[in-house]
């Protein structure tokens, strides 16, 4: 069930859009901000609130790679695999990350600390290779810097 804060926050958005369906993305962001991800149950609750079918809400959810339909770790690492970063050594970075964390792309560390995901160009090509952890962008990376960066996140 949605909490009353979640519900109220979503309902506040209704005023900004011509239809309830249009609030769909915002509603999922609101729920994800509090819970980290969108469970099947949250999906149903949001659908009910917006007068949509679960199929319709999941159609939107599954389209956006920043809406998580599976639980994620406390911190989400998104490593850019687009062309500039690829040229500048994305692959080495990835190897370093996966070996340090002991997980593959798309997985979460057993201690629930990190989830590792790929992402398309972060708009910081001039500082490639780049990755983003939660809302923070880390630029001009190389494999040696990874440990120091990860340390900041507990």
């Amino acid at each position: 069930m949605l909490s009353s804060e979640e519900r109220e926050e979503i309902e506040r958005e209704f005023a900004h859009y011509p239809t309830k369906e249009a609030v769909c993305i915002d509603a999922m962001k609101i729920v994800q901000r509090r819970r980290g991800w969108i469970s099947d149950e949250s999906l149903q609750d949001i659908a009910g609130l917006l007068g949509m079918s679960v199929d319709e809400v999941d159609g939107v959810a599954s389209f956006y790679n920043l809406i998580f339909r599976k639980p994620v770790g406390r911190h989400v690492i998104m490593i850019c695999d687009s062309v500039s970063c690829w040229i500048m050594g994305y692959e080495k970075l990835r190897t370093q990350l996966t070996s340090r964390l002991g997980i593959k792309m798309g997985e979460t560390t057993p201690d629930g600390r990190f989830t590792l995901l790929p992402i398309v160009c972060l708009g910081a090509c001039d500082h490639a290779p780049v990755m983003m952890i939660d809302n923070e962008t880390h630029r001009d990376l190389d494999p040696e810097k990874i440990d120091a960066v990860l340390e900041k996140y507990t």
Partner: protein
Amino acid sequence: MTKIFVDGRPFDVPENQSMLQACLTLGFDLPYFCWHPALGSVGACRQCAVKQYRDEKDSRGRIVMSCMTPVAEGVRISIRDAESVSFRAAVIEGLMQSHPHDCPVCDEGGECHLQDMTVMTGHAYRRYRFSKRTFRNQNLGPLVNHEMNRCIQCYRCVRYYREYAGGHDLKEFVLRNLVYFGRQNDGVLENEFAGNLVEICPTGVFTDKTLKQHYTRKWDLQLAPSVCVHCGIGCNTSPGERYGTLRRIVNRYNGEVNGYFLCDRGRFGYEFVNSPERLRQPRLQKGGQGETADGPVALVHARKLLDGGKVIGIGSPRASLEANFALRTLVGQERFFAGVEDEEHRLTARMLEILRSGLARSPSLGEIEKADAVLVLGEDVTQTAPRMALSLRQSVRQQPFELVDKLQIPRWLDHAAREAVQDAKGPFFVAAPHPTKLDDVAAATYRASPDDLARLGFAVAHAIDSSAPDVPQLTDGVRALAGRIAEALKNAKRPLVVSGPSLKCEALIQAAANVAWALCRAGKPAALSFTAPECNTLGLGLMAARPLGEAQQALKSGEADTIVILENDLYRRAPREQVDALLASARHLIVLDYLETSTTHKAEVVFPSAPFAECEGTFISNEGRAQRAFQVYVPEGGIRAAWQWLRDLLIASGANGAAAWQGVDDVLKTLAGSLPAFSAVPQAAPSAAFRMAGEKVAREPHRYSGRTAMHANINVSEPKPPDDPESPLSFSMEGVSEQPPPALIPFFWSPGWNSIQSVNKFQQEIAGPLRGGDPGVRVIEPAKPTEPDGPAGPDGNARADFLGAPPAVFEPQPDRVLLVPIYHVFGSDETSQRAPAIRELTPKPYVALDSEAARRFGLNDGDLAEVAVNGAVERLPVKVRDGMAAGVAGLPVGLPGIENCRLPAWARITRP
């Protein structure tokens, strides 16, 4: 007409269409995927690319999508241009990249648009060497099978399902090369028209799950043009048979009736024909034991029973005209009774009278789709005349189309047109006792008891024409609603009123007629459509049979002592005690039917008759269209058409005239000659004498395989195909090589076009009538057609006196509820409910209560309630259904387990 150039050749084509459509009409083979004639163009798949040139000097040109390019004066395109050819080949190579290449095990194989288009573009060799994306499939219920790996992302399925059919539980998910078409979770597709996905999807993603149980390739099926028998709409179908069982049904395009689509009851209800409960041999009752007998023995026995001459016949709305007429001839006009509930009989007569003597014409489904303001009065159309609901759903686009026209967006440019109108819908009003599936497109709904619904109708008529009876004691709210509806109908160009007999309320039918007539008198070409419960309700209605209730009288008075019942289970028509009494007072009972029923159990002689697909017959739809259904295959055992059994009984009883009845044509000729209402019926299809270049139409595709081997386990010599002198079709793969006339098309196929999309090649223009005109002949017309300009009526052109008077205000009762009938697309129809796939979707009996009423009676959803109605008490689980009219509750009718129950009726509901 506009001049266009295709590969340098000039053609005159109508405007208002895309170049793709024009090219297909002209007979060019141009591949496409995302375009569908009923869905319009979105330009998504890029398969229909052609080169367009500025003028005759332009030799370079540019690639455009033909489906997105409007026909306009002087447009020049090339299909053959080398660059376009390789572009199209590249597109299909991309689409096929992850395709599993599993045609041999794919149910679509042999009638697959993707196969056809792949061959057409010449993509014969796969270069892609990497792994393919694969998906998990879903269980979508008993009707539609899902195999996502075959998807080419054309988006037709979701466009059809969501935008056309109004469904919500099918969607596209994810993105890029992982786009997935399905439901959020496994589960039965909710929409009543989901089965059309089988034909909409150009590949083998969505296929017919019932066909899978007894799979046969299209080219191995024996087919014939047929008509659906599961409601009164009369959709045209192509049933296919192999090894003596029916394998599946596909749509048979009729531009005026079903167009490209069927409902799921009609598509999947056919399996009753294969039921183990079929009657296959005549049966004689001897000392309480049923004994099978040969036809001649049974006929001799039956003739003896008829000898006394005191025989009455009970006809049937699910039997053909031929069968009903043969029975009527056997027993005599005064002894022919309608095999329906008396109230239904009376209402059918009313509806016929209104349609034949009034001002308003009954529209075809094609016309319903084009109505621009609609009032539905007292019908849950999705459940009682399903295919009509799909047409009504399209009608709400008509008024918004005017904005689309103003913006100069072609209507067929589907997403541009939808984007332009956003959520705008034309005026559409639903008045019913409970929520209906069309409420989502309604501008307003009104929920009330049948009488109050009729009062709304009368008020609308009065608001349009003050000489129509006024309605006393109308609340302000209802008067305002009536005014709003009246205004919308008056301002429309093609207003439509839909009603019917479902609520057994004559006032509703009168009110609907009054609204339509008031509009006609105001100079509007209003249409009036009544639903009809069964496939030949109107055909039987036109035969002026006596009401069933009088049959008891006839037996009591000694007027008769023997009953012949035609394809009818009387226990579905009247309460058990009454039927028991009726049958008990007959000395002899002869029943003809194809399925075992409670009625056949009581018969002294049972003749196994042939259902649709096993015999030929003519039916009159709710529109008043007489349509012929042809025999698909020769059944095994002693089965014969009911009219043939009856004819033989006639001959045995010495009626020599009947001996001339060799085929359906002869029966219809006698019928047309003796009852003027049927004079046009023989024109519904060409006669048995039809030949093209000396040949009949083949029921089997010319690739039909195994003919010499399929019966080898019985006899190594190939059997001679059954003779069929009384039909324009042959049980063979040899036949006319040209396109047959529209009423005789057994299946759609054209060289290079193996899928059902080959229908393009059979139409005068895309989505227009079939070449030679859409099948069927209208036999019900208003007394004088309404003139679009100039009121008819008062000057005596046709009857235009308003009918009836508004009923009194409905008073809800604290201790009782008015129980109204609730209909189910899956379950309420007698024959389709005996098809396994439909049975799986049929609800269990229940009583529907509003939450307020449930609270009042101390009941919760799922509780058992005692329902006392019509002197009997039933125990039924409660279904809380919100939005029921105050004071009204509902009981599903026609479901297995719910015996005939005369509704509406007052009922007491209590906790046991």
